[in-house]
């Protein structure tokens, strides 16, 4: 229910919205959801408070992931690229729903 609403909101969001306004941000930051800040810094988002060094800082993403599907795939199951990864398999283990992953990917893409 909530996520359906969020999808609609995301589609309605203006094209020039900054990363900080995107609905995927709350999901990515929520400790009960994405909890990405446990492992990643997000230098482009001044509100992302963490000292994490477990994963690489998420920066310059658009240039490195021109194809958003590749970014989404990394979030869905990081184990495909790196079987030894410690990044949780958000899609494969249903830690996030498919639409939540879309929203997170959209937010991360802007970092």
């Amino acid at each position, binding site marked *: 229910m909530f996520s359906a609403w969020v999808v609609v909101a995301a589609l309605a969001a203006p094209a020039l919205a900054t990363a900080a306004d995107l609905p995927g941000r709350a999901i990515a930051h929520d400790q009960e959801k994405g909890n990405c800040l446990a492992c990643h810094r997000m230098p482009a988002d001044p509100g992302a408070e963490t000292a994490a060094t477990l994963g690489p800082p998420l920066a310059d993403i658009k240039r490195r992931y021109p194809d958003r599907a590749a970014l989404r795939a990394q979030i869905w199951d990081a184990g495909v690229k790196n079987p030894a990864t*410690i990044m949780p398999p958000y899609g494969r283990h249903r*830690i996030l729903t498919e639409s939540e992953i879309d929203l997170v990917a959209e937010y991360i893409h802007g970092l």
Partner: protein
Amino acid sequence: MIARLALLGFAVFALEANAASATPEEDRSAFVQTFQQRFPGVPLDDYVHGGFMFNRASRSHYDDIMAFPPFLGDIERGKVLWDTPFRNGRTYAQCLPDGGRNLAGTYPRFSTAEDRVITFEMLLNRCRRDNGEPEYRYDDRATMGVLTAYARSLSDGMRMDIKVDGAAALAKYEEGRSLFFRRIGQMNFACSNCHLDNAGKVMRMETISPAVGQAVHFPVFRGGDELYTLHMRYTRCMMQVRAQPFPAGSEAFNNLEYFHSYLSNGLPMQASVYRR
């Protein structure tokens, strides 16, 4: 083993791949070598400080708090429990060899007679049972928690000295070891992913401690006042990875503690320390 580590370049795989063939002593030295290569110049005895061993500022914060520990009241309550005779007039000190001194660092032990691992906490409960007292729950801070905060301090300074002798003991050690390396929970983490592969890195705000040195300094007081026994900490880490945790005092945790304590052989015991 060291050559093997260097060849593979990635310590975890070397440690994992040797699961069946490694002796406990080979395991321990592989862990130690891995960490010492990654953190050159840190003396092994400093590993008892966990995440605080990596950084001078956080270490001096730790030292400041340990100079006047906010948890002295809990240790005092534990001493009262320890000193108060059972209804039959006997005491823990009478029930244990050498009054319970320099004992915690030799537990867990494998009992051949019972074919299972016996922890120091089980020993305290046996003392109670043998003297007609009800046993304490292993997750009860107010009884077993504070009791061990005092009883373990009687072994401060002794070197951890865990023995794994014979095939039956080794089987329990292996069970603990396999839990340590098994990916569990919705987050799909093994203990080794954090406390071997990523020790020294920061998870949000906390520096992850290496597995070597973790078993010598329990209980800990998180935030200065929240007591965690070793098994309670295991439970917490399992909950963090969203796995169904084993209860404190369970056989799975006893076996894990057996393996996990062996890794700290040779390190000084220090009961009750501050943790963030």
